[in-house]
Every structure is written in C-alpha cells, then in structure tokens.
C-alpha cells in the first residue's frame, strides 16, 4: 500500500501548471509531442496558443518525451521496442546526448526526470528474463548510465514523478514481449498489470494490482493529480466484446483501483484501446483518448464517474492546459482545447493543418 505520509509530505510543494523559466530560450513551449510529417519524424514544441515553436528531426518514429525541469532540454524516446533516446537542446536544435539502451534491453518510449533534473529515469525491458527495469542516467554528466532498479513488474510503460516529490509511479503493463517477436504479447493468459510507487533511493514503496477479472486490461499510461491521485489509461487484451474498463483511478493510500463505469458500446467503439490519459491542472477531471474510436472520454475524478464524450478523428495526445481543461492533439494535424463543464465539454480549436501528432502530448510543468 502507499505510505500516505511519505507520499503527502512532498505534495505541498506541488506547483500549478506554468511555463518553466529555462524554456524561454526555446520559445516557451507549453507541450512537447512526437510527430510525423510526410516521410520524416520529429519532436515538436507547441506554444500555449497552439503554434509550433520548434520542430526537431528524429532518427525514427518517436513516442513520448521527457522535459528537463529547468533547462530547455527534451529527451525524445523511440517507440517501443526502440533502443534509442535523443537528448535535444530545444533552443539551439542540437542533440546534446544520445542514449542507447544497454545490451539485452529496449526502451518503452517513456521517461521522467528527478525534481532537480539531475537524474533521468527510463522504463526498460530486460528481455531475456522479461523483467521490467528503470534505467538511471546522470543528466549532469552527459547522460551517462549509472544504474537501474526493478520496475515492480513486467512491461513497464509510462513513468511519472509524483508532483513535488521524488517518488516515481510506474505503469507495469503486464505484457511480456521480446524484440525477436516484434510487438507480439507472449503472456496473455498469465498477465497481471500493476501500478508501482518507487522511491529511487529505497526501491518499491507500494503497489496495487488489477483485480483478477480485469487482469487482461494492460495499465499502460498514467497521469498524476496534484494530490497524488493516479489516473491510468487501459488497453484491453481480453475478448473484444467483453465490457472491460478503459480507465482506472488510484487514490493515495487506497487498497484497490477504481474503474469508472463506461457503456459497453463505448468500449467497443474505442476497440478496447485507450491511448493517453491526463488530469487537468485543478485535479477535478481526468480524460482518456481513444483514437480507434475517435473519442475523448471525460471523467469526474472525485466521484470516478464518466461525464461526457467528445468526438474527434484520430485524437490521441492529451495533456493539461495552462488554464482549465485539457489540450488534445490528433493525427489529422489538429490541436484543441477541451474544457469540461456542466453543459458538456467546450471545444476550442487551437490549430489545424499541423503534422500528424503522434501518441502523446507532454506538458512542460514546474513541479
């Protein structure tokens, strides 16, 4: 279980969403996202107004990125099962460092920085044993590899740092894969995903597993509220027509996950696949994106109840906006501000005609 006191200690420091001073040199982007434009792949920096501040080329298809908390430096990760990550100086456009996963490992496409920006943590697959690991890299010394930790499960995917604390939350998706078999899942009948809280100095602090009935719902992506509440986006690996949950909520100290109820028809429309998740700056709403159904699903976080859906083709990336609500990106090149409200969500187009925005939108926040 979560050590409530340990977790809450750091939470008082959690800051509101605001631009990070060190990023002014890169045009003050509010979000980062991997993209595809024509045949080329890139990492884009997006301003609060939806305008693209910079576009930096990537050697292959990216997935998520980690933003340095002080410097205009971003780590762009290859899409799973990639073995590269590129550290980019977003003000000059130069590559500062290039990370290669150690022999016998690959990345999952996500990473997170420590609060002071000294350490970079990466989710990795040690594929001879299938064990999930968290790689540790020293950002003060050219991103040299300094060690690793167990992730607490199989298939660690997204990793986030608890706002204002050093504790890491890892979504162990539960799926064993081996690069020799591409992206095929090798343990569908035994998989058991979990959320793990990891103290980089002390190891596993707490863990919660999915209940047996939903053990085939892979916990892949996570978002954190200022109070440490975790919202997770799930990917259903069971029978496509079963009414499986696509979102889970974990409150600090809780013994079990909560699953907001969603209509079976909606889960079917989303093809059992939630791609990204975000919690708004105020911590009142959580949202998942379903690109296969072209739908964003909004939930009230306190009651864990679904409130609305919002349709948008190929919608996929989502992050908190600087003010109320969310910003969502789509593969059709659009960016939209989405603000939940009692009369349904209000959608304000921010930009159209951009590149095909890939899986995730990463908010640059001070925390």
């Amino acid at each position, binding site marked *: 279980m979560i050590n409530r006191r340990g977790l809450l200690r750091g939470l008082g420091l959690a800051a509101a969403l605001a631009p990070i001073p060190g990023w002014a040199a890169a045009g003050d982007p509010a979000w980062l996202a991997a993209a*595809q434009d024509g045949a080329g792949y890139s990492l884009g920096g997006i301003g609060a107004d939806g305008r693209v501040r910079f576009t930096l080329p990537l050697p292959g298809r990216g*997935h998520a990125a980690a933003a340095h908390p002080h410097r205009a430096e971003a780590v762009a990760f290859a*899409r*799973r099962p990639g073995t590269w990550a590129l550290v980019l100086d977003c003000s000059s456009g130069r590559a500062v460092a290039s990370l290669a996963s150690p022999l016998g490992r690959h990345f999952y*496409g996500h990473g997170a920085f420590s609060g002071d920006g000294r350490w970079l943590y990466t989710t990795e697959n040690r594929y001879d044993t299938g064990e999930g690991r968290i790689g540790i890299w020293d950002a003060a010394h050219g991103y040299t590899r300094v060690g690793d930790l167990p992730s607490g499960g199989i298939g660690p995917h997204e990793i986030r740092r608890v706002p204002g604390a050093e504790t890491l939350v890892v979504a162990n998706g539960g799926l064993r894969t081996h690069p020799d078999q591409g992206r095929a899942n090798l343990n569908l009948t035994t998989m058991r995903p979990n959320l793990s809280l990891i103290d980089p100095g002390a190891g596993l602090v707490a863990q919660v597993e999915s209940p047996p009935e939903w053990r085939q719902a892979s916990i*892949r992506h996570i978002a954190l509220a200022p109070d440490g509440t975790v919202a997770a986006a799930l*990917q259903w690996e069971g029978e*496509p*027509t079963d*009414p499986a949950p696509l979102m889970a909520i974990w409150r600090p100290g809780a013994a079990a996950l909560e699953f907001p109820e969603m*209509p*079976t*028809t909606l889960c*079917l*429309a989303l093809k059992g*696949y939630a*791609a990204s998740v975000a919690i708004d700056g105020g911590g009142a709403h959580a949202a998942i994106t379903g*690109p*296969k*159904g*072209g739908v964003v699903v909004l939930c009230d976080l306190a009651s864990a109840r679904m409130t*609305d*859906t*919002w*349709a948008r*083709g*190929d*919608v*996929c990336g989502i992050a908190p906006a600087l003010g109320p609500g969310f910003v969502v990106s*789509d*593969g*059709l090149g*659009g960016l939209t501000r989405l603000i939940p409200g009692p009369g*349904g969500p209000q*959608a*304000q*187009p921010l930009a*159209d005609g951009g590149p*095909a*925005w*890939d*899986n995730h939108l990463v908010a640059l926040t001070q925390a």
Partner: protein
Amino acid sequence: MTGARRGARRLGLWRGALALALALAGPAAAAEHGVLARAALDGAILPAADSFAQATAGLASRDCADPGLTDAYHGTFDTWMALAPYGFGPLETAQRAQQIAFWPDAKGNIDRELTRLIAARDPAVLAPATFATQSIAARGLMALERLLTAPEPLTGYRCALARAITTDLARLGAEIAADWHGAAGAALATAGAPGNTTYRSPDEATRRLLVGLNGALEQTRALRLERVLGTLDRPWGSRAEAWRSGRSLRNIAGILAATRRLHETALGPALPGEARAAMTAALAYADHSLAAALAGPPLDQAVAGPGRFKIEVLQAAIAALIAALTDQVAPALGITPGFNAADGD
C-alpha cells in the same frame, strides 16, 4: 485476396488519391463533401430525428390501459434504430444515446434500479425534471420494455413509472430534433466553413458520418450477434437486445434499413460506380441473410437451435458490409484511418 477484390482495392486507393488531390486543389472536393453532408442531413438525419420525436410524443400521450401502448413502444423503438447510427452531436450530448437505450446491461442495472424505484414508490422521483436525473438504467426504452413485459400489471406505481419513462423519452426526442434542426445540423452542413468549431474541414463531416455508421454496424456484428451466438456449447440468448419484447432481429433490420437510407440518399450519389456497387451488393446480401433469419425463431432461441447457422450467416454478412464500408466506401471518399487509429502502443 481475389483478383477482382485486389483490383477494386487498387481502384479504391486510386480514387482515394484522387480525392486527396481534389482536397488539395480545394473547392471541388470541399463541395463534394458539402453535398454529401447536406444530403445526409436532409435525406436521413432530420427525417429520422423528426420521426423519433413524433413517435416518442405519441408514446407519451398513451395511458397505461391503452391497448395500443405496446405497438407504440415497438413503433418508437423502430424510429430509434433509424436514428441510432448518428451517435454523434445531439446524441453524444449528455450521453443521450445511453439515456434512450441503455444496452447491453451486463451488470443487471435495469432490474436493480427499477426494483429500487418500485419498492420506494416515491412519486416525487417521477416529476419530469427529477426523473431526468435518475440513473439511465431506470429510463429509456429498455426500462420501458421491462415494465411492458413484466408479469405484474401496469397499474399503480408501475404505471406512473412507465408514464415518467415515456415523458422522459419525449423530452429527449424533442431536444434531439431541435438540436439537429438548429446548431448541430447547421454545423454538419457547413463543415469546414470559417468559425465552424465542430467540423473544422469539409471532410470531417463525412468522416463523422462514416465513423457513426461503422460503429452501429460493428455494434450489431459484435454485441447484437457475436455475444449472443457465444459458442456452440454455450449460446447466450439472454444477451440478445430487447429479447423480452421479441425484437432482437427487428432492431438489426432497423440498423440495416438506416444503412440503406444513408447509402441511397448521401453516400451512394457521392461514390464512384465500383464502390457504390460494392456497398449496394453488401447491403442486398445482408438484407437477404436477415430475411432468412427472420423466417426462423427469435434470435435468443435461434442461437441455441437449428436456426443458429442462419444467424452465423447474418453475422458474416454484416462483417462483409463493414468491410465494404471501410475498404471501399471510405477510401473512395478520401477518408483513411488516421496515424493513431491505425495502430497503438
């Protein structure tokens, strides 16, 4: 893949490329999408919304003792199936589609909510404004079906509850029709116009229509049929939609009729000959398979008896219809799956 199919696919791709080229060229393709959206609105959506509004208003005017009540329920359900494929915009608002037809009910919420209300016998809950905030499981056509097919007579509180449900349905019918005749219809018909924040480019209206129709057909294939078929050893008749009122296959007929309507009024005229013919043929085969199934026992019984094969054929026919829509119709209209919809991580 057969040569003919490969050829058709190649042609579809070519046509898709042409549509894309036209989109880049500007007004021509924009006008094509605009014509399609306008035709869908005038020829299919508004008539369906009006019929549903009229049917629900008529249903709400009937007393519990009215011998025509059950027929009015069936008539209303028929109009709902014609509207259900347009599950975006006004039907997405406040989860109206779920408010109208809460199904599937995997956890038995309808029975639980109705039992709770009937046990409490609180008349205040049935006031329209209050009832509209009750659990969606206790409202809509599926809750009404329980009351109409229950062994208990439709009198006393049960009657009052049924009247509250029909009044609530009439409210939803009026709201949806008003929305489609108002801002929602205007947005669809002017996709891509400056200031249109719902459909930001002309093809977005076409995309939304195709996604909606595809969703209704996929629901039919997977939830209305596959889950009911279960396995040969374990068919699952009680998963059939509205089996208590014996209209599981009639609902599938409604979805197919709605598909035909959209094809004949809006999609077909915008399609090149080959894609139009493929959709027409897939529809004819689905109708033919449905007629064979309708000649047998009701769906919930057919899956467990000698009629099972006809249900499997119907399911395959709907899968073929979905394939025609996604592999031929959509590319021919320049609509391809997005970057993120195509795969996942």
